[in-house]
């Protein structure tokens, strides 16, 4: 039971070679590019979505922050599509692996913070102390703010991993509960199946929201540092 529960989170290999690379390379195939002005419906809706998201997300940045727009837009599209594809049965979600989320979060966060420290050192250091703190509290508060700054990449990665993993685990558990009840008590199995359906809708929302939150926080760190 235990082994089966987490079996879907094992990074898949094909004859010892990591298939996770191929799985990560799948989502871009679903987002076609086009050199025409008038496209088919898929490309038209995708382009409209991307335009909407980028406008909504990049208006708050100045010119230097907007150089990150390609990075942030590809980030949110990647996380959203990977999460949504992971909801399909028997599929593998790369974002459940902490290693991958750390690999996404640490460079982005470090890039934002380092560029902030390099270009506007005083401002970046001033972020370590909130306005209006009483004087005796300052040393402690600086330490606390430094810790909260350094924990940001960890929080980003772990947030995404935990949410997606927990969602998948819940779906699996409730599915197995349905399976178990289906042989003995069919009506309660139907009730549990209804719960599963509701959970699925939640999972779809969570998939999209987590992508949004991740990207939003990175853009927030960027905004503070440009």
């Amino acid at each position, binding site marked *: 039971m235990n082994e*089966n529960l987490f079996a*879907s989170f094992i990074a898949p290999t094909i004859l010892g070679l990591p298939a996770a690379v191929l799985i990560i390379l799948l989502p871009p195939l679903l987002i076609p590019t086009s050199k*025409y*002005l*008038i*496209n*088919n*419906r*898929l490309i*038209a*809706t995708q382009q*409209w979505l991307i335009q909407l998201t980028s406008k909504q997300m990049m208006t708050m940045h100045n010119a230097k922050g907007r*150089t990150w727009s*390609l990075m942030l837009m590809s980030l949110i599209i990647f996380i959203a599509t990977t999460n949504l594809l992971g*909801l*399909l*049965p*028997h599929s593998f979600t790369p974002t459940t692996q902490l290693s991958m989320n750390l690999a996404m979060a640490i460079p982005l966060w470090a890039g934002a913070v380092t560029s902030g420290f390099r270009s506007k050192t005083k401002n970046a250091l001033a972020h370590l102390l909130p306005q209006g703190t009483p004087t005796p509290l300052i040393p402690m508060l600086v330490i606390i703010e430094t810790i909260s700054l350094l924990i940001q990449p960890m929080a980003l990665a772990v947030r995404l991993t935990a949410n997606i993993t927990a969602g998948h685990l819940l*779906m*699996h*558990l*409730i*599915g*197995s*509960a*349905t*399976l178990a009840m289906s042989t003995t008590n069919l009506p309660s199995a139907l009730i549990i*199946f209804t719960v*599963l*359906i509701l*959970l*699925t*809708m939640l999972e*779809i929302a969570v998939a999209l929201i987590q992508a949004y939150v991740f990207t939003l926080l990175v853009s927030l760190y960027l905004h503070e540092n440009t």
Partner: protein
Amino acid sequence: METAQNSVPARSGSELRNAGQSWGQLGDATQVEGRVQNFHLARLVSGHLAPALTDFPIGVTGTLRLRPGLSLTMLSRVVLSAAATAAPSLKNAAFLGPGVLQATRTFHTGQPHLAPVPPLPEYGGKVRYGLIPEEFFQFLYPKTGVTGPYVLGTGLILYALSKEIYVISAETFTALSVLGVMVYGIKKYGPFVADFADKLNEQKLAQLEEAKQASIQHIQNAIDMEKSQQALVQKRHYLFDVQRNNIAMALEVTYRERLYRVYKEVKNRLDYHISVQNMMRRKEQEHMINWVEKHVVQSISTQQEKETIAKCIADLKLLAKKAQAQPVM
């Protein structure tokens, strides 16, 4: 050989963008000498890269003979951008871009990929149940009729289930719920999204169409205005006639006014002379009358006065007697 090909495109996107921004600095007239140096430097750089791309080692000024199928267009531009990032003095080498493109045109031996492009199909292939193409049903129709593919599908599913090739596990119910939600969503909101996408495309076309129509309308308005102006020019003479008439009337009025004034002035002077004459006549008459009266009164002596008064009294007595006698009748 591979390393040179791999190292050059490995520039980061921001550096290429920075180099690309320098493409916009065309016509910098203050750096003529630097241009010549840059040109030779660029030739040197591409000359050194050339042996990596060709089969034969060459000198700097020799012609390049390529392996068939390689195109140097993008590569030479990447070389220039790499050279620009390497040597900051080359940043103003933007003017070299078009020149290099023309120079490397001799290397374009392959077919260009952009034309002719085959037309895209308007709709995708028809599928049944979203997964199985129609052609499969048509393929099985001659042998098994309409129900053939369905029986095949059912048999396959039951075979997989009974032989536990597909195991019913927790994942099955998850799959059922996910696919159920997906199918429900697609059935319910599919046409809406399709219409939305069509509307997006239509909006794009409508924008372009409107731009075209606005341009046509603008030109049409200009034509109409020009025509109306020409028509107005034909009718200008009315305006001139009216103005001419107005001026003639004004002249006439002024002339008459002056004429009247002259008449009045002359009459004034003549009336003065006449009234002077009348006054003199009257004065003379009065003077004469006064003189005659004065002399008559002077000439009446006292004797005559007494006689005259006595005569008047006698006449009066006579009249009184006559008057007394008369009323008796």
